[in-house]
């Protein structure tokens, strides 16, 4: 890992190679788990950070569900390295991993990610063929069984917000569902996107407040406050429906509906100049400022067992 450039964007192969190196360098802490395969038969890998114990409670992070949001995969790589190198050094990381496991899926949409490198940098969706349409792909953040088919998603396969023919039609989504349900002890899901500088929580598919709204809101407030202490980057926070728009079929709503109380989605930084094309010199600043917010959530989960 000492030769890996965390301040540069990388291809799928480079990131998958780096994951192997991380596992090699931290064999007692990090392992690689294949949770399924993509539509185009690419492996779906999750990095597992664990200090032992069976079926400990766990925290799930994913990056890159929307493939063109390159800053998110890059932040996933940086964060995984931060956790691996921080265990035994950083008291917070050590405390978390002494009690809980952390799972990170850095490339949640590998077909889309490969396609952004080979063919269309702006590709957002999966790469599955839609019967009866010339348009490819499903928005994997509208494909979850949580208000599936409702507002803020589309039934048109040509739309960037196409929800898919049915909930969990996408192998990339089903793999996460199977993994989290199979695990049975995931206590937090943090799904990372870009680029509107927000920290969001349920609900997305309806405007009613979630039963844990107040706690999630307080935690989000603290997280964005701590994020801002690094470079002064201001985030907004709140429920998806109230902060942006009603969006049905999202990851965090599915997680919340399935008993994961601490369910958040990040929208990483927006400089106002680059959108999805954030220059690579901003990878490390973005990851660095996001880290205290992630840590706030993880520590809160550790300290508030349920």
């Amino acid at each position, binding site marked *: 890992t000492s*030769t*890996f*450039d965390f*301040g*540069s*964007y*990388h291809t799928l192969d480079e990131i998958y190679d780096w994951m192997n190196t991380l596992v090699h360098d931290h064999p007692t802490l990090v392992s690689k788990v294949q949770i399924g395969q993509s539509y185009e038969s690419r492996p779906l890998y999750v990095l597992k950070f664990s200090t032992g114990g069976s079926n400990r409670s766990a925290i799930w992070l994913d990056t890159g569900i929307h493939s063109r949001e390159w800053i998110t995969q890059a932040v996933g790589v940086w964060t995984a390295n931060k956790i691996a190198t921080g265990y035994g050094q950083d008291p917070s990381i050590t405390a978390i991993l002494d009690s809980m496991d952390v799972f990170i899926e850095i490339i949640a949409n590998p077909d889309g990610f490969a396609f952004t490198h*080979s*063919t*269309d*940098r*702006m590709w957002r969706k999966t790469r599955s063929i839609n019967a009866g349409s010339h348009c490819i792909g499903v928005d994997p953040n509208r494909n979850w069984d949580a208000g599936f088919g409702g507002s803020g998603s*589309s039934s*048109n396969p*040509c*739309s*960037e917000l196409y929800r898919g023919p049915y909930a969990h039609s996408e192998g990339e989504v089903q793999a996460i569902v199977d993994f989290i349900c199979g695990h049975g002890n995931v206590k937090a899901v943090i799904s990372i996107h870009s*680029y*509107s500088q927000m920290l969001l929580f349920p609900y997305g598919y309806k405007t009613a407040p979630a039963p844990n709204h107040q706690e999630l809101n307080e935690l989000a407030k603290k997280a964005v406050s701590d994020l801002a202490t690094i470079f002064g980057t201001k985030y907004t926070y709140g429920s998806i429906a109230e*902060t*942006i*728009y009603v969006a049905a079929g999202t990851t965090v709503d599915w997680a919340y509906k399935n008993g994961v109380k601490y369910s958040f989605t990040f929208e990483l930084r927006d400089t*106002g*100049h*680059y*959108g*999805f*094309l954030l*220059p*690579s*010199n901003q990878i490390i600043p973005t990851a660095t400022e996001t880290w205290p917010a992630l840590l706030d959530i993880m520590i809160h989960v550790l300290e508030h067992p349920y």
Partner: protein
Amino acid sequence: KKTFVGDQVLHITPRDEEQITLLRLLDDQTHPEVNYWRHPSILGHPADLLVPSSRLQEIKGFLDSHNISYSTMIEDVQKLLDEEMKTMIKSRRTRSS
């Protein structure tokens, strides 16, 4: 490989709900070549729209005709992509050496 020469990203600031509704007409179902990077949502939140060079005049005309204010966030998307690729190649070369 798809190129984006001359394509622009417009940063659009709707003034009221009516303008948000109008902006939603520019979605990829009715205009498959344009692409919201950030969808029109609630008042106070800007929308960002990727417009191919071939449709710039038409889309800017639409915004002007409805008095919807906008600025150009990215003048030429391909220039940024070229820069991004150059940086990646440079990083790879540095590592190799």
